[in-house]
């Protein structure tokens, strides 16, 4: 078994502080329940199957959005970097759309896409698109000129060069963009679910808030923190496997 790291001790210490602050009345509000009650609520609603179902739904929406937005980001990023005319045509539009906060575009998206999965997945995809796009473009710029020149010398056409030389070479950048996007995607999924519809973890959070059930509210917050952490760890592991050559080069 691995030794417990100092980071784990810090988390446990913070939980102890939370418990003490609620039990000893340092924070005197019903909206600040002790962490043990929060964990009890988490276990209760996990056993009934409600939370696992909702988490599953949220994750499904998140990964759909991640896939759609990630693919679009890579394709557009490659196009912008390899075919300069596309960047000149669409670059301004993309740069103008990028700084818009996602919660601000949810109302018009509701108008066009409704309140269900299409709207929520689109919101996630939009969020994921931009970091992946920027990183892909940066990645293409970092591809070694010799690699592309050698491809040309061997008579490989532009499509195959993009797919088999440029894309693998810029994969580390794409994956770094996806990792940033992964964290954002979870946040945005929950925000979209909080606004409308009766699906997912976000809706659970709103219902519990309106029912005045603080332990369930914080249980969701804890769950999301754990989920975000686990997703990131899983992604790093996959990343190490996918681009082990990059790490092997000592970069």
């Amino acid at each position, binding site marked *: 078994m691995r030794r417990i790291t100092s980071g784990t001790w810090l988390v446990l210490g913070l939980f102890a502080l939370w418990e003490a602050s609620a039990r000893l009345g340092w924070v005197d509000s019903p*909206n600040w329940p002790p962490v043990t009650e929060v964990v009890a609520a988490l276990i209760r609603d996990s056993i009934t199957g*409600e939370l696992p179902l909702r988490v599953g739904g949220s994750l499904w929406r998140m990964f759909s959005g991640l896939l759609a937005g990630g693919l679009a980001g890579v394709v557009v990023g490659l196009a912008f970097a390899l075919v300069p005319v596309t960047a000149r045509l669409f670059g301004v539009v993309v740069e103008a759309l990028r700084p818009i906060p996602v919660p601000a575009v949810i*109302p018009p998206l*509701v108008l066009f896409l409704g309140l269900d999965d299409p709207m929520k997945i689109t919101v996630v995809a939009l969020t994921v698109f931009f970091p992946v796009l920027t990183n892909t473009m940066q990645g293409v710029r970092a591809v070694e000129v010799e690699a592309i020149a050698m491809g040309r010398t061997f008579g490989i056409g532009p499509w195959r060069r993009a797919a088999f030389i440029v894309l693998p070479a810029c994969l580390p950048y794409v994956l770094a963009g996806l990792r940033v996007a992964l964290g954002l995607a979870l946040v945005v999924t929950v925000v979209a679910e909080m*606004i*409308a519809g*009766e699906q997912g973890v976000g809706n659970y959070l709103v219902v519990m808030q*309106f*029912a*005045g059930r603080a332990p369930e509210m914080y249980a969701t917050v804890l769950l999301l923190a754990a989920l975000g952490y686990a997703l990131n760890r899983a992604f790093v592991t996959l990343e190490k496997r996918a681009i082990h050559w990059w790490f092997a080069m000592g970069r």
Partner: protein
Amino acid sequence: MNITRRATLAIPAALAAPSLRAQSLTKMRVSVIPVLDVAPLHAAIREGYFAAEGIEIDTSTTAGGATGLPGLVAGQFRVVFSNVVSIMLGVREGLPFRFVSGASKGKDAPPDILALLVRKGSGITTGRDLEGKRMASNTRNNIVWLRGMAWVEKTGGDWRRVSTVEVPFPQMADALAGGRVDAAIFSEPFVAAALETHGDKLERIGWPISETAPGGTNAQYVAMAEDLAANADLFDRFGRALHKGVDWVNERAGQPALLELIANFSRVPLARLQKTALPAYPKGVTPAELDELVATMQRYGLTGTYPASAGLIHRTARV
């Protein structure tokens, strides 16, 4: 949640109307807020009244009334539950909302579904004391705010000199106890929750509905005029089923069965609901109650030309 709701809907429906073909159910999406006022809708769903009329109700919860009415205009919902002030403001702007059914009203005597709370020992007892102070309302320009302003005026204050701060209901008790606002207009079940958890710090000084407009109108169900004209039969069936739900709720006033129903959809703990004041559940909407409301709105700055109220009431709400 959705799955269990459909399941509970299907079982009584199968018993009540065996001849009904399951495929013939018309889906209607209704926007609701998780509040006590929508108990009849949930009763009608659970008891299978909608299924017996060939309707499947898909409720969509929104945190406030704000997303409901725009969603109705955009065609996302067939029916929206909303507070009457927001509805009438939409009507004033030319939106073709029509009342399909009443939802909730204040009772003629306390306890109200709204209450004005202040900190104990703050010395505030009237609207006059609130002048120059900060008062929390969940939203500006809705029924809660309007009744609060009417209360300020009724108790000798000038509503223009009370500044309104928007605080969501779940955070009101903390904001008030923490001194961030000087008074707050709570709606049930948040009144019961605040007095339960902050009872040593907060006290109630007013009943905004029964002190200013006893039995005053509060919230309704609305639909779009074109949809009502094109699908009058569907909405007749909707109205019939919903009103059977109203009967179910009214027959069980003060009984545990009603509180269990509310606890089920709102997730509010049963123990708290036992201390919660419930609204009156009307079936209809009357021109008189809308006229009274419009007059109050005009008085508190929500001025403008409102169409004649009788024309806004669909036949399902003329009961």
